[in-house]
């Protein structure tokens, strides 16, 4: 439950702030997003690179990830096709 509060709170706070300021703030958030993503992917890379066990498992992770990505796509496409046949989408 703590995780929920910690991760969901900033997202909800951002949405509420953005919505409240939507007529007043025409901020270009893309630069801030880019910098944050840079910091985030660097830290992720660091946590992976600094851990020998994780480094050694990377080839296996890559194959598992490929397999899972394919499954996620297959199931998503299949379910949407099923939904399309049952419900008129547009």
């Amino acid at each position, binding site marked *: 439950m703590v995780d929920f509060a910690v*991760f969901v709170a900033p997202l909800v706070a951002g949405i509420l702030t953005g919505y409240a300021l939507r007529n007043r703030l025409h901020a270009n958030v893309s630069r801030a997003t880019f910098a944050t993503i840079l910091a985030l992917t660097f830290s992720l890379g660091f*946590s992976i690179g600094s851990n020998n066990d994780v480094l050694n*498992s990377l080839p296996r992770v890559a194959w598992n990830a490929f397999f899972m990505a394919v499954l996620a796509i297959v199931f998503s496409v299949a379910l949407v096709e*099923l939904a399309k046949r049952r*419900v008129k989408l547009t």
Partner: protein
Amino acid sequence: MTGYSGYGSASSWAVDLLFTGSLFLLLFIMGLSFGLDKEAILKLKQTGLRILIIPFTVAIGSILGGLVGGLILRLDLFASMAATAGFGWYTLAGPMVGQLFGAEWGAMGFAVNFIRELLTIVTVTWMAKVGKYAPIASGGATTMDTTLPAIVRYSGSDVLVAAFSSGFTLSLLAPFCIVAISTLGRLLFSVICL
């Protein structure tokens, strides 16, 4: 790769702080850009809420894919589902899954979603033949920006709003789903251990 240089524990608390802080900030900024985006909400209302069936179906399909993958590969089921609940948004899913399940899962979360985006682009011509909304289903959250041009090119401009709305909705759903799955996993685990 900087981490590999072996400056291990002395500097890792700083990186941990950077990690958590930037994750927090990214979620806030994403929320901000959603709240500010008057156009997106307007487009959604214009198309009709029925179009939301696509993102919710994709969400279920993605998580199901993670569950099946976890079962076949004999991995942590909740971590697998959390990874695929990134719906292609690798810059969010990687760090978030990493925070919740550890560095190896962080790599997995990143890779699953990165590969998903790549596969969507590479297979778009074929997917467009499978079905009108198939490329949108494949792309998940990425259909609001990175895969949108490719999808519109091969599926036609009439799917533009559907693709954008689906990607937009899934981008909002991803952090919620990842955390919910993780929380559920921990709850179930603590119940089983009692």
